[in-house]
């Protein structure tokens, strides 16, 4: 699974279509991925596990969210 996520991260172009947010309003998409990244990091740190899978959420929220919203 960690191998798959690494390949997936290497092949990352931009945030893919997310069927949870199919319409024009992508605000929730940005919010959800931002939340998922921070929760993932926290959870992995608590378990002492590799946080590489969390990078997917990071890349997606970086693609979608304006810098001023997340800095």
């Amino acid at each position: 699974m960690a191998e798959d996520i690494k390949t997936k991260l290497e092949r990352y172009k931009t945030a893919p279509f997310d069927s949870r947010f199919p319409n024009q309003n992508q605000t929730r998409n940005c919010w959800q991925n931002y939340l998922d990244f921070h929760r993932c990091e926290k959870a992995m740190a608590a378990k002492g596990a590799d946080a590489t899978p969390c990078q997917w959420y990071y890349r997606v929220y970086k693609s979608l969210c304006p810098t001023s919203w997340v800095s």
Partner: protein
Amino acid sequence: MANPTQLGFQDASSPIMEELVEFHDHALMVALAICSLVLYLLTLMLMEKLSSNTVDAQEVELIWTILPAIVLVLLALPSLQILYMMDELDEPDLTIKAIGHQWYWTYEYTDFKDLTFDSYMVPTTELLPGHFRLLEVDHRLVIPMESPIRIIVTADDVLHSWAIPTLGVKTDAIPGRLNQTSFITTRPGIFYGQCSEICGANHSYMPIVVESTPLIHFEAWSSLLSS
């Protein structure tokens, strides 16, 4: 950009705009046909050639109910087809954020490195020969041609709207909301647009310029700016 005294659409530079132009031609033809018919009947009536003693006209009533219904369906079908087509998002190659401010745009390319820049209108006094008044900007939005591009439009202060007529794109920029739109440019070129939501004193002076270029040149440009 539009030429002086231009009345019609600009030439389409994206597949969606091509569809919109075709639909517009179709709808205009329907409107022309109906107007011609009405004008003809009006002329006949004014020349008193349409007087009648009829009090009961079930057959003609049926015809001029069914026929308009058919005409409406002929308008609705292509309209809905294009509406759904506009909402389709093939996997985009690139996501760019366009953020409206009073009175300029900021563009962010953050898929890989963080590339952010502001895009201000070139003042009339600083135009170079060949430049277009009130349309040129200091930093254009450069994109690779023939690639699906996702644009996320938002605003920092008041309402704005990001519009490019030749690409068939117009998306409102609303503070606190991320509006998604997408397009593919069918050819390289420079495409102009203007802010399309009243946003204060300089609403007319915050244009949008998209430069569509082959991928190699786009990559060279973005490497140059990211460094």
